[in-house]
């Protein structure tokens, strides 16, 4: 770990410093996208609930795990919203519109399908890199998660870190 006290961010852990257990926990966060399949209940909310639960349980284990669980959780929100939109629209067509679809619906369906496909591919990639102990940044969510987890301005206590009270400060310039 390369320590730079001047940096406003905590140093990034390197793959050889991350225990296998942490890597597996980080990888697991991206696999929460299959939670709905696992419980055989195809509701978009299931994956989000699983991701939130996984995040809450694991975030204090280490910064590496915290980063990946947060990124996984945040990246799941837009997909979940898109899927909910599709589900509601499809239900409306099924129950009220006598299965008459419009071009708008098909356009939305294709968009959601593509979004899910992209999400699926990038999540699997992220899971692969997390398993190797590497950082993998999604567009926007990656930077945001990095800032939330590694910024020194954020005070968040991890397991194994004692209560450190900062009393000694450098002189004011």
């Amino acid at each position, binding site marked *: 770990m390369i320590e730079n006290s001047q940096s406003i961010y905590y140093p990034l852990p390197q793959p050889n410093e991350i225990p*296998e*257990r942490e890597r*597996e*926990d980080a*990888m*697991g966060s991206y*696999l*929460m996208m*299959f*939670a709905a*399949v*696992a*419980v055989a209940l195809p509701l978009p909310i299931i994956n989000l609930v*699983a991701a939130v*639960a996984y995040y809450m349980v*694991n975030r204090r284990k280490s910064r590496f795990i915290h980063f990946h669980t947060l990124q996984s959780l945040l990246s799941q929100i837009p997909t979940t919203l898109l899927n909910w939109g599709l589900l509601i629209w499809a239900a409306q067509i099924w129950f009220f519109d006598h299965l008459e679809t419009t071009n708008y619906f098909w356009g939305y369906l294709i968009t959601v399908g593509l979004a899910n496909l992209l999400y699926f591919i990038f999540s699997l990639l992220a899971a692969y890199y997390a*398993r190797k102990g590497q950082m993998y940044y999604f567009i926007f969510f990656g930077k945001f998660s990095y800032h939330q987890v590694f910024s020194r301005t954020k005070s968040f206590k991890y397991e194994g870190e004692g209560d450190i009270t900062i009393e000694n400060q450098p002189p004011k310039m």
Partner: protein
Amino acid sequence: MTFDIKRQESYSRGELLLRTFFGFIYIIIPHAILLLFVGLAASVLNFLSFWIILFTGRYPESWFEFQVKYMKWNIRVNASFFNLVDGYPKFGLNQEHEGVHFDVAYPENISRGSVLLRFFFGWLYVMIPHGLILGILVYAVLIVNFIAWWAVLFTGNYPKSMFDFQVKYFRWSQRVSLYMAYMTDKYPPFTGSFDPEYDLPVTNDSIDENAEN
């Protein structure tokens, strides 16, 4: 695997009656509600573990520990409901009961071939033979439990042979669960007795570790 339920020297008749008449309300219902949610999480992890093992050959360690804790909670509730131990089963994954010992050694590697075999044919070579015997034995367990109930009520002691019979049943079914949950590669033996090839004895160390947790 370490599985044992300690037979107490004497059992409380009051608790026995309380559990019999109100156990469903104050033990089963609250625990079942919580275990339902924990069980859902366990089944999600179990499903994902299958794929992870296929790709990496390893069961994620913290997931494995979660499954063991979930099983331990279930065993605690069962042991209490079957009057094998006195005392109210504690809520939570990190809790222990001093009379109930359950632990599973973490396997560094799980055979991918064996996992695939279990996934596709587990019902055939595990669930049918073991399920058939356990399915018949459960009736014997219920009858023995009923007889033991009267023995405890009148004498305050649990007849050893009846106690052991039930513990063996639970040990056997636990071995099958472990195997089908991809948590071990060892095929469960057709017995509930202590098997030195499969089981680890309960040692003072393991009891101490449980107490510390």
